[in-house]
């Protein structure tokens, strides 16, 4: 009973998902403003500030305006922020301060189902944010219709990946302010070095190899592929990497969280 068991996972995890949705419904009107406005801010800021400095960006045989190059990456980073923060800070509050998980563990729900419910919820939230961003980016011509809609299922996969690693950190971090560490050492470098703001091709090879480890790099490549119709890597490889990353960190999250919660 102490080790996480896959046999303890049933569709009951949906109850956890519904619980989070019910809580979130009270604040979603405000929360939905962020993905709606964020791409606008970036595009205006970089468009006004950088366009004159940079001119065109060469990417996968295309010569792109800087804002057009960057816009699809915003979709990927929004997915990352939404899911990672959900399973770190928000899950930690539920677990540690609100004792929500302890309450659930007196009901027929298992620890494993709680963890799966949390990760799937984080992925759903990321998917909703990406959908809203596309609702802005497609009409202004920054993402191709209808191919860019593939970013929506992709966001769910990416959400599972970032949600899983976030949940893993929640399982091992002693106090809530320690989340600064994985954020600063993992999320921030990933945000900057995943081909988000400049093509990986332009940086030294060793740095490019490090980027390959980052799940965000694979997300960014795929969002660009779906939005612009061009990419510099192999979509099958990108998808396979994201799936493998999700499986590994979902397992680690299950084990670390079970060890933390069950004494």
């Amino acid at each position, binding site marked *: *009973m*102490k080790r996480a068991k896959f046999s303890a996972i049933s569709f*009951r995890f949906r*109850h956890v998902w*519904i*619980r989070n949705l*019910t*809580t979130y419904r*009270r604040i979603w009107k405000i929360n939905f403003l962020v993905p709606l406005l964020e791409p606008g801010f970036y595009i205006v800021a970089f468009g006004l500030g950088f366009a004159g400095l940079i001119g065109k960006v060469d990417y996968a045989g295309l010569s792109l305006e800087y804002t057009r190059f960057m816009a699809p990456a915003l979709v990927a980073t929004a997915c990352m922020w939404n899911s990672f923060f959900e399973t770190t800070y928000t899950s930690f509050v539920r677990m540690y301060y*609100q*004792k*929500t998980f*302890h*309450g*659930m*563990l*007196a*009901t*027929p*729900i*298992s620890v494993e189902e709680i963890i799966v419910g949390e990760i799937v919820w984080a992925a759903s939230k990321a998917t909703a944010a990406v959908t809203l961003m596309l609702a802005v980016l497609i009409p202004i011509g920054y993402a191709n219709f209808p191919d860019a809609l593939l970013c929506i299922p992709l966001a769910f996969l990416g959400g599972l990946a970032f949600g899983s690693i976030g949940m893993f950190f929640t399982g091992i971090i002693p106090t809530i302010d320690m989340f600064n560490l994985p954020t600063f050492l993992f999320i921030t470098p990933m945000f900057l070095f995943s081909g988000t703001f400049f093509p990986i091709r332009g940086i030294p090879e060793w740095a490019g190899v490090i980027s390959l480890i980052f799940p965000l790099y694979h997300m960014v490549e795929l969002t660009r592929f779906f939005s612009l119709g061009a990419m510099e890597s192999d979509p099958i490889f990108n998808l396979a990497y994201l799936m493998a990353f999700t499986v590994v960190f979902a397992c680690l999250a299950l084990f670390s969280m079970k060890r933390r919660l*069950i*004494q």
Partner: protein
Amino acid sequence: MESTNIIEGRNVVKCFKEVAAVVGINFTVKSGEFFGLLGPNGAGKTSVIRIIYGFSPLTAGHMHVFGININTGWRAIRYRLGVCQQENTLDPDLTVEQNLILYARYFDMKKTHARNRAEELLDFFALTNKRKSKVMELSGGLARRLQLARALMSEPELLILDEPTTGLDPQSRHQVWERLLELKKRGMTMLLTTHYMDEAENLCDRILIMDHGRIIAEGAPRELITDYAAESVIEIEGPGNELRNFVKSKDIRHDDLDDRIIIYTEAHGVLEEEIREKFCMESCLFRAGNLEDVFLRLTGRELRE
């Protein structure tokens, strides 16, 4: 058939790393019983409770609830029990009503059934006019009543209460007691832990006192009082040597606390009369023996933490 045993623990052992919290206890709780689990902080009460509802795994021994093994049938067991935890585990962002209905969902309860059940319980715990309030805005007493109501949403056969009245004002405590006695009348089996001895004495049919992970006494409250204290108690301030010698020579059960002596006697007995006449010039207190006497006599008066 042993179907009347709702809870049956055999050689229950629970260790945290190297520390043993429960050291091989045996106990049973029968159907319809109001069972009390008492003990000082760190005695192992919460560990036992957490084993019963399948939160903490056993280190060794066996635990059966409703005749089902907790290791293999924890899910089936949890469908049939309600737990009111010591800490507030309510959802602070949701309303009173939402808390109840959402909790029923965890038991796969149908929505219309959950609504009706919530309605009944809001009424039963006098929360009806608070149904739309946010949990964050509730007072301690209201939150506790809500947590009790929530534990009852799934219509459990066994209700586990871990210190349900800690921190409540006397009015709220009495209200909670009334509700619990009402549930008892309906035949519900209940397991209670508490630090309030009057609470255990008033509510429980049978009590188990634990210390250092072991059972040190078991019985009905009145039995425990006559066995370990007495029906009648005399407390005398500043006892003289004459009194001390008298108590010792007559071999009377007593506790000598230096500035105070507590004497356990038979009610209206000869000894009580003799002490009253000889030694009670001033500051003498006559009272009935209670569970607190038992508890302090068995677990000592030293601070634990």
